[in-house]
């Protein structure tokens, strides 16, 4: 029963921007320079940068990383050189690539976010991903993401100031993610990314101390995938805007699972730490999955889900 088929169409469109394929890099787990030693960045649907803030941030003290069963904790604390340095030194390099550029924006106060999106007004980038969900920043960030009211407010204000479409990146550390998603959609968000990390902690019983200097950190990796899939599924049934799905994607089948749950595109995070070429491997595996089950497009995968 083998038929001759066209090559699969992997294209997806998010907020009017068409990516060559649904594979993107999760913020904070990708460096164009370092990741670029391992694979051809032009193979990606889009690059999503490490969080950029209005000024340089130092980040947290070390240890910033701890391993857990099937996952990891990080408390990097959004170390970054600030938007001016980013525009001067990193962006030109990204702009030479033949892929879409999504800049992840971090802030502790509303003004922090405004400064960044305003400075990006004239820049040739495709989308903004607004991180209102980082668990590793004491003074803010996650605060915006845990209350529908605050999430709505910040979305509205950023939307006014941003030229590019905005994707709100949501935290899973909430009682009801659909409320937050609905709130940001109502205020004009062009999409949502979910999920950021789950707040976790590890104590080293040998040293008798928290494994992270920051004590708590963000849990990522395959351990959290079921929570992420559940949230993508719930949010897909609550809002109409596109979803970038992430959280523990390790294989092409995992990517397909997120797409069935309702994601329009996916991001690869922790998988790229233990396998630097993971985004491209996962893309190939997704194609193989599509071939095996005769899916010709990403939409066909999504529509293939039987949700009685």
């Amino acid at each position, binding site marked *: 029963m083998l038929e001759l088929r066209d090559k699969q169409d992997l294209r997806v469109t998010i907020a009017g921007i068409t990516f060559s394929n649904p594979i993107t890099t999760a913020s*904070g*787990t*990708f*460096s164009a*320079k*370092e*990741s*670029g*030693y*391992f*694979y*051809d960045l032009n193979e990606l649907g889009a690059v999503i940068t*490490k969080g950029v803030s209005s000024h340089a941030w*130092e*980040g947290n*003290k*070390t*240890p*910033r*990383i*701890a*391993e857990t*069963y*099937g*996952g*990891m904790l*990080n408390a*990097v604390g959004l*170390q970054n050189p600030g938007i001016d340095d980013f525009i001067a030194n990193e962006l030109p390099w990204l702009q030479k690539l033949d892929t879409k550029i999504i800049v992840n924006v971090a802030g502790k106060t509303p003004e922090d976010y405004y400064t960044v999106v305003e400075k990006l007004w004239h820049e040739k980038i495709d989308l903004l991903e607004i991180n209102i969900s980082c668990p590793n920043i004491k003074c803010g960030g996650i605060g915006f993401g845990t209350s529908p009211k605050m999430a709505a407010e910040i979305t509205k204000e950023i939307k006014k100031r941003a030229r590019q479409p905005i994707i709100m990146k949501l935290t899973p550390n909430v009682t009801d993610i659909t409320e937050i998603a609905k709130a940001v959609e109502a205020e004009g968000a062009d999409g949502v990314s979910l999920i950021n990390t789950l707040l976790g902690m590890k104590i080293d019983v040998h040293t008798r101390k928290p494994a992270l200097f920051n004590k708590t950190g963000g849990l990522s*990796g*395959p351990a959290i995938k079921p929570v992420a899939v559940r949230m993508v599924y719930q949010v897909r049934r609550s809002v109409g805007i596109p979803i970038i799905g992430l959280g523990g994607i390790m294989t092409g089948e995992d990517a397909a699972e997120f797409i069935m749950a309702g994601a329009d595109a996916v991001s690869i995070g*922790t998988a*790229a*730490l*233990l*396998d*630097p*070429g993971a985004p491209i491997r996962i893309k190939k595996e997704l194609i193989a999955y599509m071939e095996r089950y005769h899916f010709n497009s990403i939409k066909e995968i999504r529509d293939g889900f039987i949700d009685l």
Partner: protein
Amino acid sequence: MTKKILEERITSNQKIAEGIFRMTIYSPEIAQNCTPGQFVNLYPRGRHTLLPRPISLCKIEDEHITLVYGVVGQGTQEFSEYTQGQELRVSTPQGNGFDIGPSLSEKMSKFTVKREGEVPTLGRSELEAGRQMTLVGGGLGVPSLVALAKALITQGHHIRVICGFRTEPYLIEEFEALGISLYVTTDSGDYGFKGTVMDYICAHPFASDYYYACGPKPMLRELAAYCREKQVPVQVSMEERMGCGYGACLGCVCNTQRGYKKVCSEGPVFLGEEVDWYA
């Protein structure tokens, strides 16, 4: 596209002291493209332990590399169970390694990448002629000094090695084979001088033009303070818990005078001067 994760074959894996193993891997690709002080990432197979384990290059031969590691947790426990002939996932060399002078710097620059202005310059002139070099190692920091000592000898320097262990020394025969001056200390006094390497250095003053060190942070800190006082340059190899091990995640930073630097891709070797020891 110059870095890779390889599947290489283990040619031997043996216990050399209590809880300490030596693994030899057949890998011309790594052996011919690395410098002392660089490390490789080993990827556990146990799929609940996701992250790579950085291990320094201990010996570099034509087609083989040797790693010496201590069994401290699940990852290294797993490695210790590997047997000859088995394959393991290992990265190409990471980090910048020790700066061992001009003749090798060209080779180094092929495999390591530094932004403009980031190459340590202090002490480079000292590396030019046959100098008196002191290599200081503590515990699992000792292995990386083996490859370093050999390279420095090739450069025509005079080498003194001072190694500290808890109770049982290892790799002694490797240094002895190089025909250099070797001083061993143990915390317990079971072997050699009783005390730390710093105790030894303070008790036995000697002249040295240059220092290299790898070991626990408190040892490196003390040595850096000592070298600053003596106005002698020192290169220290720093250790930090890693996420990716290749520069993507900002997990492994070291606080320096120029802010946080990534140990995996901008280190692990820093000048003692540039590290902010009390951050």
